[in-house]
């Protein structure tokens, strides 16, 4: 896919980590963009539009994740996606 590539490092601060609910909000948002979205935890790199792969990262609180978006709307996508990944879900 052509277009820009943007990267952002995000630290998970939700007390229960990146579990199903934050993941599904992130994927719903990612699906609104055409660009490829990938999320990496160290060497483990997965499709950011796949909830099952994101669950498999087991991102506990304090985990640093690298977000990368590539494609025609990458510039518009990077900020909202980074914010969604960093969002805190305190009460579940």
């Amino acid at each position: 896919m052509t277009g820009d590539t943007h990267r952002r490092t995000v630290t998970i601060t939700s007390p229960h980590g990146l579990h199903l609910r934050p993941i599904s909000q992130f994927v719903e948002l990612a699906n609104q963009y055409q660009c490829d979205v990938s999320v990496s935890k160290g060497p483990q790199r997965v499709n950011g539009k796949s909830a099952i792969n994101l669950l498999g990262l087991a991102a506990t609180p304090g985990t640093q994740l690298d977000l990368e978006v590539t494609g025609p709307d990458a510039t518009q996508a990077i900020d909202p996606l980074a914010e969604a990944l960093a969002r805190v879900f305190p009460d579940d």
Partner: protein
Amino acid sequence: MEIKRGIAVSPGVAIGPALVVDTEGYRIPQRFIDRGQRGDERARLRAALAAAAKEAQARQDTINQKLGKQYGAIFAAHALLIEDPELIREYDALIDKNHTAEYAVSQVIRRHAKALESLVSAQFSTRSADLFDIEKAILRQLLGSKSEELKHLKEPVIVLAHDLTPSETAALDPKLVYAFATESGGRASHTAIMAGMLEIPAVVGLGRFLTDLSGADEVIVDGNRGVLIIDPDEETREHYIETQQTIGTFLRELGELRDLPAETKDGVRVQLMGNIEFPQEVQHCQDRGADGVGLYRTEFLYLNKTADPDEGEHVDAYMAVLRSLGSKPVVIRTLDLGADKFANRVEKHNEERNPSLGLRSIRLCLRSLALFKTQLRAILRASAYGDVRIMFPMISTLMELRQCKLILAEVKEDLEEENIAFNRKLPVGTMIEVPSAALMARELAREVDFFSIGTNDLIQYTLAADRTNETVANLYTAGDPAVLRLIAQVVAAAQAQASPGDNGAGPQRTVEVSVCGEMSGDPIYTLLLLGLGLRQLSVAPQNIPEIKKVIRTATLTEAKDVAAAALKLDTARDVNNYLRDRTRRILPEVVS
């Protein structure tokens, strides 16, 4: 009779006939297809996935309406998982090896569930139930068969299962299901959360027991103690019927307390307030008849942002609290976070070897003045619209308090110049949560309007014990004599201020003291705290009815007696046993 022990996740007691739900139930009829059928098989799978996703979305709408959005969100996640691009790739790969769609789905999902279960962290492993749930949803579409579902119940039962998936739990009708008990599942599982929401007693993580059961055995689920009793004997049965009645009466009584004041039998009024983290929680306080918000923790304004919150965001949150609270007071605590907790700090601090003794809370604010002043401005602006009070956390020296007040004065001056309204007499308080502050309470009292004793940190710092570290957690208890003495000393220092002083503040000056740590929400400490002279307690909203009940059952005379006796005891164990005993004498229901 057989007794099984598990994890209590939703309180209450139920007695009834057992219904065993077999969740393994779907049998895969056929594993292979002919090579030529691959295309058709993929199409059949696509249609089933679309239908299952649609069903999950419909369920989401139903649950949104029935229980609220945060619960429906689970099914939005299911819809996403059903059509997950990576899972579909894996199903297709198996179909390409001439497997049926059913087999592919079952294999792939079970492999992922197993991988999730092997993850170290409990909150992730419990999510495998969600995967089994979507497996069933897809298979149901593929096989077209209707299973005996829980929503078709005719008479009340107690549901026993290996594991209940979230949609099975949500389909339970509380009128027809008295309780449930499962072999697996953890405290953080969706099933546990939903059971609490539906207010059905539930015990999970019981280990294998289903194989021991025949059809219509009678069982008892004790959701308070985490116990399942199979085929109870007559004595046990009677005991539990009695317990059920006691619990019912007690809950009704607590509900009736809502509009009654927190007042002792001999007429001493206590301000019973709620602790909150989010503006929406004010409603939880109001629902239980709180006298106000005794501790508004503001950390969450900072935590979920890519930039620090601006003044407007602060003001919006504070105004939302004031709108729900009416004329009742709210104590806003300024930022109480460690440097390590900021995801979005531009300057990365060096990693601290001992963060709880490091640059955190007020220490951090005093080094980040722009950040601090933004919050102070917002608190002052909100003070024009309600009974707002400001409180500084983790003060350990008089100098720190003076610095805070100086900065507050500067911000007030700025607002004056800008002609922005605020309460010039905004009450200023300090947390007493560091032993040095407790020891210097007399001096601190001269310069503030109120104290709030934060027992969580006070205990941790006094006993040098981190309560989340289980190897030293036995040291961490509010009943430790050292903690009691510090609290007594702080109250005495505040009361000394209330009498005519030499500081020019006049004879009417009072320094209020409240306790806002978890100690204040534990009923065994209520008599002690009243007896020590506390007239203000701030507790988690759900603890309000119980604490109010203790207050309304006690007299000040006996509370003083309890405090005097407790202060003479030498060990935490003696103190806690004594307090439990004295509380049990007036209100046995609240002592576990």
